[in-house]
Structure formats: C-alpha cells, structure tokens
C-alpha cells in the first residue's frame, strides 16, 4: 500500500515532552491544598490486628487525617476487577507484606511519614503460605475467608479456581517418546519507571481522581460503585503513564485515597515508593509440569500440562491471567491431544496482576523447553522439530478457536536465518530458538470522536492510554492518512473520563487494532460527510465522489479537503464530527468468553556464551521476529519489540523476589532486585517483522507489544543448555544458578552440536 503516513516513523506525538521532562505525570500535578498520604503497613505478611492506636500519629504537626478500617463504611467496602475481595484497608487480618492497615494524610510528606511510623498497631503474626507447596498443604491456613465464595467446592482450599482446557484423548494418544519435566518461573515485578501515583479531590457533589492507570473507565466504574456515585460524578484524570506493562491496569490504592480525601474534605495524594510498588504489583510465579508425547518423526502426539500459578492474597485480575495465559499453553502447534490444567493458587504474598505476556511466558518457558528436550531425545534438530509441528495459516490449532492467523513459519525461518542457525559455534557458545503465542483481546469496546476543524486541523478523542507504547502517534497517523492532515495539526486528547468517550481498556496489545479501528471509522464518517458536502457544492452524485487521504476526487477534478470544507461549512465556520465504535462482543460459550481478535506470534533466537568458571551468561546475539500484520510505525514497532525482549531478559537472567520466613520481601527496591541495564543488553539485538497485512486492525495490522517477551526464557535457556550440556529448569538463570548446575553435572557434558 502506498501511503503518506502509514508505514512511516514520524516523531512521536508527545515525545518531546516525555523526554524533556515537560510531560506531567500524576506525581507532577499539583492541586491547591493537597495533603500528602502515607500508608501504614506491618512488618510481616499475615497478622491478626488486635488494635490500632492513632493518638501519637495524630499529634504530629501537620497531620490532618489518620484513617483506619474503623473509619470506613461498614461492612468494609471491597473491590476488584474480577472478584470483589480486596478491602479498602485491611480489616481484622493482613494477608501480605505491605497490605495497608491505615493511611495518614498530612500537610507535608515528612509529617505523613513520621506519623505513619507512630501509628501503633498491636498484632499477632499468624502462620502463612508463600509457596505453591505450602499453599496446597491440606493443613495450610486459608488465605481467603470461605464465606467470600459461597457454594464454591474449592472454598475450603487455597485454590481459587481451576481452568481446564483440552481436546483429543491424551491418555489414549500413542507416543514413541515421552518427556516429562517440572519447571518454575519466579515472582517478578513490573518496575515501571514512573511511580504508581494516586490523587483524589472532592469536586462539588462528586469526586475527581487522578491515577497513573491504564484503564480509566474501569476505574471509574469501580469507584462509582464504592462511593455510591453516578458515573458522571466520578471524573478520572489519567495522564499518560510512564510505563504500565499491565501493572497499572487495575484499581489499587485509588479507593483508600478517595475515602481519605472525602473524609479530610481536601485533596489527598499518594505517590508510591519503588519499595511500595513491589508490594502492590507483580507477576504470578508459576510451577509447571509438562508431559509431552512425540512420534518418532518429531510430531507432537500430546501435551499434558499442569500449571500452578501463585497469584497472591487477592484476586485482582490474576485468575483471568491464569485462565487466558494457560489457554494456548500447547503453543502454535498442531497437537492432536491436549490437556491443560491451570490453577490459581492464593498465597500470603503481593496480589499478582496483569503483566506483559499475561500468564503466557510462564507456561511458554516450560512447554518450549520441553520441546527442546524431546528434540534432543529424538535426535532431531530443534528448529526442524518446530517447523514440523507449527500450525499453518487457517489451521484450527486450537479446535474451537480463531484459526492460525499468520504465516508463522516465515517468522521462524527468518529468525533462524538471522541467528545463523546452521553456522558453526565458537567455544562455550550455544544457540536456542523458541516460539511464543498469545491470544489477543477476546472482547473489546472502544469509542472515539474525531473533529475536523474549519482550518483542516484535527482533534482526536480516544480513551486509550499512551503509557509509552506510542498509541497517540498511531492514532494521529491514522487520522493523517485518512484526512490528509499533517501530524503537527493533530491533537490527541486522552485520559479524562469527563471529556473522552468510553474505552474498555488498554491491554492485550489492543489499542492499534481496536481503538485504531474506532478512529478509522470516525475518520471514514467524516469522509462521507465531506463527500456529501462536495456533492452539494458541485452538483454531482455522492457516489461519484471518493475521498482518499487529503484528496476529494470528483469525476472531473480533484480538490483538497479544505477546498470543500471551507465553502461547505460556510461563513459561520464550525466543524465536522465523526464518531467511531469498535466492538468485539463477548461469546458466552467460548472458554475465554470470546475468541481472540488476533494472535501475537513471535520467534526468538539467541546465541549465548556461558563462562564455565563463573556461570555468567552473555547474550551474544538476540533475534526477535514478530508477525505484526502491518507495521503502521516501524520504529515504534521495533522499540516495542526490543523493549519486550529486554524485559523478558529480566525474568530470564536476574529478576526474582526473595522472601524471608515471615513472608517479607527481602529485596524490596532497586539495590537487590536487579533489572537489566543498558550494560546487560545482548551484544547484538535484532528485531524484524513479518508483514502480510493479514491482521484485523487498520491497514491489516495486529497487536504486537508483548510477543517478543513470550519466549525469551525458553530461547535463552536452550542456548545455555546448548552451551553447557546442562538443563536448568528454574528461572532466573543467575550466574550462581548456572554455576551450581555446572558443578552438579555428573560428568563433563558433550558440549557442542551433536544433538542440538
């Protein structure tokens, strides 16, 4: 397609402000008379609260409010996107390290911090569970009160829910080779660079809430219900987040800050420290047992997968993560028999939530690693075994679902070519290749409004959130393409529920597809109004007029939009308005409540060098190829892809929570929880795309912001295995873990390529 704006990489809309410090994040916004808040927490995970004495805290100069559970409506309001199980403040018992039992609001941050230290909580530490094994022990203390889930046969266990998916008959399937292993994936946190920030202010007969949130409309619904206010009286300001990664999707401390603001009668704000962020958002840890059956020719005979996700103390969106993330666990392959059991397991740890990849990276690590083991056992090349099983476009690889929607083998072949799969390896080096798949959004609703002003400039109103992925730019590019308006004459308005129409959510890599289609529809509505205008002005039939980008084509001539718009609007000026609606309805009979709008497919190939003395893993080359349908903005696609790859290296090589025996997170903060820096990047990182224009989004695009994270661990793990001969089935692959594995290997392994 020859276009002026699509497929180009103009300067990012809002990029200048973002990199120069001009952009205002929630923490930068000052409203008059705002009070600074601090949460009061206990120094253990689970405790029975005996009493809370706020008298000393209240005496601190500048303190205006100390609020405990007793000061909130009774019974304690609870909330959550999936289950309404999380109390605004802990009532009776804390369930994880960092759960707030009170909030202090003061004139200064120092006063709030001092007062928070002076809130005296008398408590008894209680037995608690921090691991899958401990949570599943029949004698384990229950994380949730069974009365929260009446009629649920699992209510007397720490299993919140079981998800069963499958087809074919696993038990009857014939296999020439069966490989069974257990893998683990660590607890990690999002580590967004912008701190999570919350502010609330009484506003007339309603409330205004500022939040670094990805889903402002979902927050609005939850707050309206908690506060018993009409939606129209709850105004959510959602400035562009500085990184979300799923951690900013759902309501966290907005309720406690809102109740504090209403009680204090003044605005209250809470800016989390990095330490507190660790106690607010994380990815579910997971233990996965995979039994894979192969035919002698490497064809997959069955996959039998059991995944236990440790979701934490409250549900948040975690059970959806478990269900949706485990659902395509058998991968992008044609597998005749599949049985998947995924369990959401409660524990006395930070409630886990959505995180880029949404439950898929955990099972991908296990299943892709196990395919490597099968290839080795069968003496089949690890690339070849994937190509033999990969679903082709149109294959119903999940029988009751969206068929394979891309030429995925192209991505695999390209990644293999870029990594030099067939080339000889240097000493101490190994290669790995893995594929990942993730279901895109299963439901969706995105409204937008586009206004074409009298001078040809454009304002787009779209409620999706630009958290760094660059959706403002994409939407502006679509409007520019459709209306011929230069990008610098387009304004994109987001993040205010009183102004911007409803958008369901910014997640599952949906914005380009769903909101993109909505904006496209709004622009096309304006195009048809322009056609009507031109027909009226020039006395030709509407059907004889086409609008293409900036041009209005009449049978005998071509006019610019302005040449029609100005006379069409007349002396009073005015504007044209178009509305867009992109809707993906729920399908109640589908296991996920809807078939995915698209699949994200990625192939990652890695060459790694392992220092046999220290266990250090150096990623010499990292190749990621994603099937994106159409890259509307190639630079943004590449940076999203690279960002996902690097974030994946975090949980692969270094990131993990460390707990003590009381369930306290020992490595809170940046010093002992390490994320990759620029120094830790692969020596060479190559991102490419497959573009066949076969996506459901504008111009054939698909969502793509998570793909390159999905199979990083499996690709790196395979490369380390290839370099050392030692399989490691627990992440992260820290130098010490790799070193230990090398120490423990029974005999000097055959290092090299004999059975790659």
């Amino acid at each position, binding site marked *: 397609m020859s276009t002026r704006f699509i497929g180009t990489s103009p300067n990012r809309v809002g990029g200048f402000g973002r990199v120069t410090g001009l952009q205002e994040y929630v923490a930068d916004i000052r409203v008059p008379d705002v009070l600074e808040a601090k949460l009061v927490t206990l120094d253990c995970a689970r405790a029975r609260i005996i009493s809370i004495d706020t008298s000393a805290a209240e005496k601190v100069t500048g303190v205006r409010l100390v609020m405990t559970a007793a000061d909130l409506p009774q019974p304690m309001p609870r909330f959550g996107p999936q289950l309404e199980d999380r109390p605004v403040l802990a009532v009776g018992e804390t369930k994880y390290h960092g759960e707030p039992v009170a909030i202090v609001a003061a004139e200064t941050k*120092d006063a709030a911090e001092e007062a928070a230290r002076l809130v005296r909580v008398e408590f008894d530490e209680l037995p608690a569970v921090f691991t899958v094994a401990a949570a599943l022990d029949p004698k384990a203390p229950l994380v949730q009160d069974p009365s929260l889930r009446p009629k649920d046969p699992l209510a007397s266990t720490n299993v919140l829910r079981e998800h069963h998916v499958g087809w074919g008959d696993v038990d009857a399937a014939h296999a020439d080779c069966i490989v069974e292993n257990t893998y683990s994936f660590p607890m990690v946190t999002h580590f967004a660079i912008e701190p999570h920030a919350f502010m609330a202010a009484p506003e007339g007969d309603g409330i205004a809430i500022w939040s670094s949130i990805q889903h402002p409309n979902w927050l609005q619904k939850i707050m309206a219900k908690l506060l018993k206010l009409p939606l129209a009286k709850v105004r959510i300001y959602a400035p562009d987040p500085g990184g979300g990664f799923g951690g900013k999707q759902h309501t966290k401390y907005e309720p406690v800050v809102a109740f504090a603001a209403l009680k204090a009668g003044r605005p209250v704000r809470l800016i989390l420290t990095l330490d507190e962020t660790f106690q607010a958002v994380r990815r579910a840890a997971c233990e996965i047992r995979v039994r894979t059956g192969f035919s002698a020719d490497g064809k997959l005979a069955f996959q039998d997968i059991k995944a236990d996700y440790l979701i934490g103390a409250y549900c948040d969106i975690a059970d959806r993560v478990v269900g949706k993330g485990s659902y395509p666990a058998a991968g992008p392959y044609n597998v005749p028999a599949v049985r998947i059991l995924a369990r959401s397991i409660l524990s006395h740890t930070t409630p886990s939530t959505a995180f880029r990849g949404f439950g898929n990276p955990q099972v991908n690590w296990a299943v892709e690693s196990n395919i490597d083991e099968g290839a080795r056992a069968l003496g089949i090349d690890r690339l070849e075994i994937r190509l033999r099983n990969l679903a082709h476009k149109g294959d119903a690889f999940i029988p009751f679902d969206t068929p394979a929607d891309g030429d995925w083998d192209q991505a695999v072949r390209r990644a293999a070519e870029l990594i030099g799969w067939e080339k000889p390896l240097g000493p101490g080096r190994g290669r790995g290749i893995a594929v990942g798949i993730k279901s895109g959004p299963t439901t969706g609703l995105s409204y937008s409004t586009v206004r074409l002003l009298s001078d040809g400039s454009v304002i787009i109103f779209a409620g999706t959130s630009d958290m760094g992925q660059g959706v403002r730019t994409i939407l502006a590019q679509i409007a520019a393409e459709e209306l011929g308006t230069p990008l610098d004459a387009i304004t994109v308005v987001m993040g205010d529920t009183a102004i911007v129409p409803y958008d369901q959510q910014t997640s599952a890599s949906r914005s380009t597809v769903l909101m993109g289609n909505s904006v496209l529809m709004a622009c096309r509505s304006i195009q048809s109004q322009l056609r009507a205008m031109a027909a009226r002005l020039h006395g030709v039939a509407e059907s004889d007029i086409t609008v293409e980008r900036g041009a209005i084509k009449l049978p005998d001539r071509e006019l610019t939009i302005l040449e029609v718009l100005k006379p069409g609007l007349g002396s009073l000026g005015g504007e044209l308005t178009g509305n867009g609606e992109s809707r993906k309805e729920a399908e109640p009979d589908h296991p996920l409540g809807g078939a995915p709008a698209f699949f994200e497919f990625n192939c990652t190939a890695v060459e790694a060098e392992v220092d046999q*003395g*220290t266990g250090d893993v150096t990623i010499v080359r990292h190749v990621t190829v994603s099937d994106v349908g159409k890259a509307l903005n190639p630079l943004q696609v590449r940076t999203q892809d690279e960002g996902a790859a690097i974030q994946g290296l975090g949980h692969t*090589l*270094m990131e993990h929570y*460390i707990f003590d025996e009381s369930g306290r997170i*020992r*490595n809170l903060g940046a*010093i*002992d929880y*390490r994320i*990759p*820096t*620029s*120094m*830790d990047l692969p020596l060479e990182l190559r991102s490419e795309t497959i573009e066949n224009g076969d996506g459901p989004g504008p111009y054939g695009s698909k969502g793509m912001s998570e793909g390159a994270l999905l199979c990083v661990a499996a690709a790196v793990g395979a490369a380390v295995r290839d370099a050392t001969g030692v399989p490691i089935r627990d992440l992260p692959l*820290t*130098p*010490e873990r790799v*070193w*230990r594995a090398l120490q423990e290997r029974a005999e000097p392994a055959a290092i090299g390529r004999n059975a790659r």
Partner: protein
Amino acid sequence: MHTFAYERPATLAEAVALLDAHGPEARLLAGGTDLIIRLRDGSAQPAVVVDVKQIAEMSSTIREQDGIVTIGATTVVADIAASELVKRHFEALAEAAAVVGSVQIRNRATLAGNICNASPAADTAPPLLVYGAVIVAAGPRGTRRIPITEFFVRSGVTTLAPNELVIAIEIPVPARRMGAVHVRRTRRRGHDLASVTLCCSVDETGVTRLAYGSVGPRPVLYVDESGVLADPDGADEAKAPIFERMFGDASPSKRSMRASPEYRLAMLRVLGKRAVRTAIERLAAERAVEA
C-alpha cells in the same frame, strides 16, 4: 527525615573542633552517596552533619610529588577513573574507580568517603591495599599517616578516632615494573554491588600482592614473595597451596541475598586465578613496551 544541624566549616581546625565537640553524634558529608541514603531511611540519625567540601585545606586534586601520588579527600571517583596520572601508575585503581556505583554516583562520591564508609564490598579498597596506600588523617593533635592495612576494622568502622577525618590518600608510585588488575563479581554487568571484589599485582621481582573484599568483615591483603604465583609457567599444583593460604580465611555472610557463601568462595578462587594471570600478562606487556 530526622532533623539535624548542618555545618560547613571553612578550615580544617573548625572541622576537627566540630568533630571533637560532637563525637559520634557528628557525621561527615562529602559526596553524600552513602550518608544521604542513610539519613533518608533513618539508619543514620546524627545530631550534626559536617560538610567538608568547603574546607580550605581539603583538595579535590590528584598530584604527584617525590614519587608519591596524593589524592585529595574531596576528589570524586569519576575524576580518579579518568585521571591519566592514576591510569599510568595505578591501572587497577582506575579500573576499580570506574565501577563504583553508577555514573551519577561516581560524579559525587569521593575515594575518601568510599574507604571511610568501610563497606567490605568497597571496590577501591583492594587496589589501595595492593598499591600500599597511606591514609592521611587530621585530628586535634595534627595529622598522622595510617597504612591502609591498618585502616579497616569492619563494615562502617575504621581505626580513625571519632575526632579525626581523612584529608588525603597517598599512594607510592611503584618502584618496579608491575602489572595489576581489578576484577569483581556482580549479578549483572550494569552497576551493582560486588559479591567479590579483588585486585592483584605482579611485579618484575616476582612479588604478587592480592587483596579482596566482600567475602568477610573487611578487605584484606596477601603478599606472595616466593615468586610461585608470579611465574607464568608455574604449575597449578604449586600455586594451589598459596591460593588456599590467601583465600582460606574468607568468611562470606550467610545472610546476603547477593550470593551464597559457597558461590562467593568459589568465585574468589576463580577471580583470583584469573587476576593473577591478567596481572602477569600486563607485566609482560609493560616489559614489551619498554624493551
């Protein structure tokens, strides 16, 4: 944050008087990269913070005179890493200075602060031990010189008296040709705290000096004058007992999250051997240049 008095003396005498008056209630502020964090998290609650950056007698220069390089107490680590003088005479110190903290930290942190903080993991300590640095301290009775081998006690504790402060660090220019290297073990390549930090030098007479930190309460120095370690063709079996003597007393913390004791001890040996090898290679390169 806990409240405290802030003093910025203009002379050494005033600074010493403040330390004398407040004793352990006073804390010195130079780069502040350790102190400010501790003030914020409440783990340090001094009555008075004495800022040494305006003291007339304190210098942030690096100069050479009579075979001694003197690094002023307010010299920041970034300047040491970049100093041609340091790189020429004390390559391993420049290497260590280049990995202290992050760029931002190195632009503020001082060498004197790094050693006075006495973290067992301080990266500059092993090279200072290897190069035989001398700490110049000022107190009520004037200045005194403390060999660095007698400086560190344990984390946060040195042999400085409460009313003394470091005003300079002197390092003798090696009299003999030498190859030296600083190496460390971290959890990632980006800035990180070392789980082993180690420096080794080999000189042309066959003396090997090896110092390491982060595997015990304080950084320590071992010297091998036998020439066995420095022998490029020496057998591993001959070197092994010397290494064991050097590493035998290491006692890494069991509580650390950064690395287990077993890993640290193993890495001490891996890094030690690698460092000796590199030092020998560098010495050979020195000889080649001069030949």
